[in-house]
């Protein structure tokens, strides 16, 4: 068997059903093997970054490892943003790149780049394969490392001659990685200590993040929350990890989280941090974050525990197992915190997300609420993706996600352009779901060539472009913190003509210019049976509130000025 065929047989052994990529010189033998036949569906992207985000969207929607394939040099460097994104958000990803022939490595050959070197800080591990006999074991290890412990990206760089070389293919049953031993259980003593602390607390709060979703531990988180009648805040990355409509879910905290979620953290006497990493966009000024709280920090990655905030009770291990155990421990202690819940409910009542409607002006929040309501009427599962910026924060605030893996976004890296390709990847993973990308106009233009992929690969998605004609979040910062000097943030609402652009790519294009057109147009887009782009022309000046200015204490969260709201 040839090395290139061995790669495909390995992917098949790993249960990969879809891979995303673009061929090129140094990866040609692998594509030739694809031509010879495989059960892996290859989705041809239009840019390697798109392929990478598709693989991420696939991984986040399915819980499986995403696979992205690129050639050497620029193909590989184009993958870097997606690999970095997967690193920051702990998305399991195997990036496979072609490399120049072994004898040319190190000579600055055509399309040679040291991609294992370039990606060293943003992968869990990487391999440069120069001996075909190593291929099966390397791929086995790559998938194992990507999906175990704290999930994340790995890279396998394969020299072209290795792809062309012969080997006797045997796929190993076990990995041989003496240095990779992620924790497999949770120390019962730490769980008991956590349960005792929860029972002793007056104002405990669960602070749950994306780790809950990665661990497939949504049911266990819910069990814990209900066992102790514990209020929870759920981060952007954790959205869907506890149903948004659950009464004990107080939604996202942080820079654009609710006032009540930020206040809840501020007044808590016990933080039960689960699968989360005290990101600065959540904590704001660290010294003022949950200042009166003792911390239980439960994570699969020991290095996260205590990294930012000292944890009085560190708990390291798999969340699914540990949360189930903790829920039982808490239940056994008969915990309730009703006065605290009553206080939180009052705040929730008092400080809801709100924005001012204006006659004749279509507010972006109205558009997102309309998309939410339109999708709620569909029979299908709905998977949401977003880009990064104001629209992302409004999506976080206004979308209701009651299922895990229904909200897919770029949190840590904040990658504009993530939403559309991630949606295509999610659709490939879950063809029966309706996949909707809430995007910004700035984001959309960074990866919109992937509309061709959506159209030709028959992966229909609906992209709703919250078109305010600006790099909106940057504009908001310029308005609030740079004395309204709007340097280089104006994109215009009319260029490109989004509906025409969609049509040019073989998708359906729609334009909405007023609130009155929203419902009908969205219904048409959802019903059109192919990929659709809905250009929603929104108020260019709307700002996203609440907001904790960078570096400020989260408790000092700013709301939209009263005069705007009344």
């Amino acid at each position, binding site marked *: 068997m040839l090395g290139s065929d061995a790669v495909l047989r390995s992917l098949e052994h790993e249960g990969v059903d879809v891979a995303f990529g673009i061929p090129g010189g140094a990866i040609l033998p692998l594509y030739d093997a694809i031509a010879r036949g495989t059960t892996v569906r290859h989705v041809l992207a239009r840019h390697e970054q798109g392929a990478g985000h598709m693989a991420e969207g696939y991984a986040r929607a399915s819980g499986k490892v995403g696979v992205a394939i690129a050639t050497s040099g620029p193909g590989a460097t184009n993958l870097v943003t997606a690999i970095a994104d997967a690193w920051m958000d702990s998305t399991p990803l195997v990036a496979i790149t072609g490399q120049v022939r072994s004898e040319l490595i190190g000579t600055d050959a055509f399309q040679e780049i040291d991609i294992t070197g370039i990606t060293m800080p943003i992968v869990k591990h990487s391999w440069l394969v120069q001996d075909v006999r190593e291929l099966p074991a390397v791929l086995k290890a790559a998938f194992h490392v990507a999906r175990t*412990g704290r999930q994340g990206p790995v890279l396998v760089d394969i020299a072209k001659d290795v792809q062309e070389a012969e080997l006797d293919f045997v796929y190993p049953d076990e990995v041989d990685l003496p*240095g*990779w031993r992620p924790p497999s259980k949770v120390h019962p003593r730490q769980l008991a200590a956590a349960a005792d602390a929860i029972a002793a607390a007056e104002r405990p709060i669960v602070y749950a993040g994306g780790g809950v979703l990665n661990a497939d531990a949504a049911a266990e988180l819910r069990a814990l929350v209900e066992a102790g009648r514990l209020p929870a805040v759920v981060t952007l990355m954790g959205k869907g990890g506890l149903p948004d409509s659950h009464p004990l879910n107080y939604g996202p905290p942080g820079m654009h989280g609710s006032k009540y979620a930020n206040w809840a953290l501020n007044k808590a006497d016990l933080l039960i941090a689960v699968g989360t990493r005290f990101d600065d966009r959540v904590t704001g000024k660290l010294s003022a974050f949950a200042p009166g709280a003792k911390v239980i920090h439960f994570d699969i990655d020991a290095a996260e525990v205590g990294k930012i*905030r000292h944890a009085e009770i560190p708990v390291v291990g798999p969340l699914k197992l540990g949360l189930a155990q903790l829920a039982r421990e808490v239940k056994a202690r008969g915990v309730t915190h009703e006065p605290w819940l009553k206080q939180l409910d009052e705040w929730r009542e008092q400080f809801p997300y709100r924005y001012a409607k204006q006659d004749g002006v279509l507010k972006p929040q109205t558009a997102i609420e309309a998309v939410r309501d339109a999708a709620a009427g569909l029979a299908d599962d709905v998977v949401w993706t977003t880009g990064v910026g104001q629209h992302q924060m409004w999506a976080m605030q206004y979308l209701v996600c009651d299922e895990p893996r229904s909200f897919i976004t770029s949190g840590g890296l904040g990658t504009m352009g993530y939403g559309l390709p991630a949606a295509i990847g999610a659709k490939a993973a879950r063809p029966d779901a309706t996949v909707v990308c809430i995007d910004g106009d700035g984001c959309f233009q960074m990866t919109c060539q992937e509309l061709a992929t959506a159209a030709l690969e028959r992966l229909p998605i609906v992209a709703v472009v919250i078109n305010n004609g600006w790099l909106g979040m940057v504009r908001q910062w310029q308005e609030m913190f740079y004395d309204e000097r709007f340097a280089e943030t104006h994109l215009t609402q009319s260029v490109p003509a989004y509906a025409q652009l969609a049509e040019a790519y073989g998708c359906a294009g729609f334009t909405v210019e007023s609130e009155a057109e929203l419902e009908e147009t969205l219904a048409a887009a959802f019903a059109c049976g192919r990929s659709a782009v809905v250009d929603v022309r929104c108020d260019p000046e709307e700002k996203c509130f609440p907001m904790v200015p960078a570096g400020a204490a989260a408790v000092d969260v700013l709301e939209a000025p009263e005069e705007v709201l009344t």
Partner: protein
Amino acid sequence: MAGTGAEMSSHTISVRLENTPGALARVSQLFSRRGYNIQSLAVGPTERDDISRLTLRVDCNENSLEQIEKQMHKLVNVLRVTELKPDDSLERELALFTVSVAPDRRAELVALSQVAGAVVADIGRDAITFEVVGRPDQVEAFEELVRPYGVRELVRTGRIGLRRPSRTP
């Protein structure tokens, strides 16, 4: 870094890592990116061909030390990370010193160096190269000793260390 343990001090960390291409680069990349300052780093083979041992000397506080150890543990090629505490471990260093000396003072310098446990490695017209093997403080003491003569060039391997079997449970 929050909490206690913010005082800076020096620590010796011993790392067993797989002897594969890139393993050392991964460790040193981690140090540079996360802003840990390495005083010395020595790497070499061990009793097993497939494993290298790295001895690192770092200046950091207790919190950072914990982070360093945890972050290194996450590297796939890293097999084991242990801190070598001074009381429980042996540390040695090799240094070469080229010391300027006029012919009429050679005998005096050689005698002095022998008392200090150094070995003459080469003798030139106006300089002598000594090799010193010992605890890091002995190497430093030798440097103090010969400094008045004029140290022309100096190279140290950085410390290597092992836990004392007598202190290993």
